[in-house]
């Protein structure tokens, strides 16, 4: 059946042939030109690329709105923490490379644990239950302190060794995380273009019709949860080892929301979208915190003065309604601390208004949004 294969849109081999190798090679050069804080920032971006790609399978491919994705991230991280932290009651001194598959397995089991009870749920109801599930896992980690050491957390989690080198510097972590993200991106792209991917796409569009086509919706929905969870678990294992310390506070609802925002802002179902989304949602807030950024912003005193004049004018009409921007020399630092979330939130709203399909939508989704506008002529013979 050569026909069947040749017509699939952008097969992974096509994609990987030129665009991706160039992009990956460019990424590998970055540590040679930027300072350590930038590399550290990019490690976090890479970690969230992995998480975003995982959630993309659940939300972007299968259309299952999961607001508790942090649970799988936590499952991976605590697998690593519990089995390697000297403070853990079940420390087993296992190697990172042994825990990696174990963490992925445990996370995907947690995924099935969530998936089974929510199978009949759709849309908003699914979102609410998964939201609760994420919180349950976090509360479990806090309250079962005999096992997890509760809020004290688990520290001194060891780092992986590869070919005799300990992955200890930011640069080494950076390459490590690129390798992991590429592997995950490759796997999810292959899944998307497979028979499984088409079943997910059908379920996302219309679950009843998918079932009427002969798709075993139960099986494929569970598979989507388990696959997404496995990737979340992988991210968790890497995160625990990179940070070296985990506590329940790191696995709050905010993580689920960040990852979901990455997927939506970037463009659901799209791999480049996840990368762009992570850079914006994870990278930009960190860049705003850099000393260099503060120093840079401090140069724009004239902009501050202009804004202050404007605010003063508003104040004259509506006395006391609005404050003034802080002094020029502290503006950058203050901006980074106080107002960055406001600016950031406004930017996100703007992105969604201007580009509802995301910054870099998948080719499928681009068509879907594009063709929503001109109504198809009815009854053209």
């Amino acid at each position, binding site marked *: 059946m050569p026909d069947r294969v040749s*017509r699939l849109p952008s097969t992974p081999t096509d994609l990987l042939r030129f665009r991706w190798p160039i992009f990956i090679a460019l990424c590998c050069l970055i540590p040679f030109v930027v300072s350590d804080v930038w590399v550290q920032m990019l490690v976090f971006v890479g970690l969230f690329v992995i998480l975003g790609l995982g959630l993309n399978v659940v939300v972007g491919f299968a259309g299952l709105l999961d607001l508790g994705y942090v649970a799988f991230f936590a499952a991976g991280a605590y697998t690593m923490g519990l089995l390697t932290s000297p403070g853990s009651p079940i420390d087993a001194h296992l190697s990172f490379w042994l825990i990696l598959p174990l963490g992925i397995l445990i996370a995907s089991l947690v995924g099935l644990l969530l998936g089974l009870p929510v199978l009949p749920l759709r849309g908003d109801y699914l979102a609410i239950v998964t939201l609760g599930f994420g919180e349950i896992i976090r509360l479990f980690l806090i309250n079962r302190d005999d096992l997890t050491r509760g809020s004290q957390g688990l520290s001194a989690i060891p780092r992986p060794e590869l070919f005799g080198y300990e992955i200890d510097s930011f640069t080494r972590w950076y390459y490590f995380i690129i390798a992991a993200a590429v592997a995950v991106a490759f796997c999810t792209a292959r899944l998307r273009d497979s028979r499984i991917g088409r079943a997910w*796409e059908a379920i996302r569009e219309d679950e009843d*019709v998918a079932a009427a086509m*002969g798709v075993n919706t139960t099986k494929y929905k569970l598979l989507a949860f388990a696959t997404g969870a496995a990737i979340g678990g992988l991210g968790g294992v890497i995160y625990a080892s990179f940070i070296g310390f985990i506590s329940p506070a790191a696995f709050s609802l905010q993580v689920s929301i960040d990852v979901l925002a990455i997927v939506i802002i970037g463009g659901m179902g799209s791999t480049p979208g996840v990368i762009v989304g992570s850079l914006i949602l994870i990278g930009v807030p960190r860049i705003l915190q850099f000393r260099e950024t503060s120093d840079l912003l401090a140069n724009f005193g004239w902009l501050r003065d202009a804004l202050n004049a404007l605010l003063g004018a508003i104040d004259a009409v509506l006395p006391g309604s609005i404050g003034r921007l802080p002094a020029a020399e502290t503006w950058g630092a203050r901006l980074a601390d106080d107002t960055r979330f406001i600016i950031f939130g406004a930017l996100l709203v703007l992105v969604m208004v201007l580009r509802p399909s995301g910054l870099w939508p998948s080719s499928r989704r681009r068509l*879907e949004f594009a063709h929503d506008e001109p109504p198809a002529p009815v009854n*053209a013979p």
Partner: protein
Amino acid sequence: MPLLEVRDLRAGYGAIIAVKGISLDVNEGEIVTLIGSNGAGKSTTLRAISGVIRPRGGQVTFAGQRIDRLQPHAIVRLGLSHVPEGRGIFHSLSVYENLLMGAYTRDDAIQADLERVYHLFPRLKERLDQPGGTLSGGEQQMLAIGRALMARPRLLLLDEPSMGLSPVLVETIFETIQAIRREGATVLLVEQNALMALEIADRAYVIESGEITLSGTGPALSRDDAVRRAYLGEA
């Protein structure tokens, strides 16, 4: 023995019982139509037969096998395809991929079936790479039927194929349904367009408020006074 045997089927949604114990038979090679007004339970009957909703009671036997407790994907594998109301085209999948979805349960060669669908609906062949959502209403209906045929069904359930189409297109669709029957498939057709449905049907059932009130051959029902008054728009 009929190909499809429905006995005392009950189905509904939540507290609403839309189908209150109906029985009907479809014999191999027949076109059978189920006519009735809006909300009479036509679509619910089809959905319960194909397993998209779980029947509340009664028995459904297809080709000698009980199917009323089976999952929809298992029912498709037995050779029963359902073209849902509103066509259910996957908008973001291309026309070709929609056809592939129809063959989801198959693991043998499907090229011959693709050719057959192209032959029935030449327009689809011209639009293979177009997303399903960009087709016109009539083309979407053709795609929905073509997609269902890709599973090589013994029995095809068609839910309101004429809905929202111009009279010319309705004519085309009904001709296709007859062509499909000539090629060996059996058809259970649900329609509000009773006139057209009775014209091509061997036998027909009239459903009212979830119950079968009349049945007979197509021509006999189209002569029936009650049917003429209620569904054929005659005073």
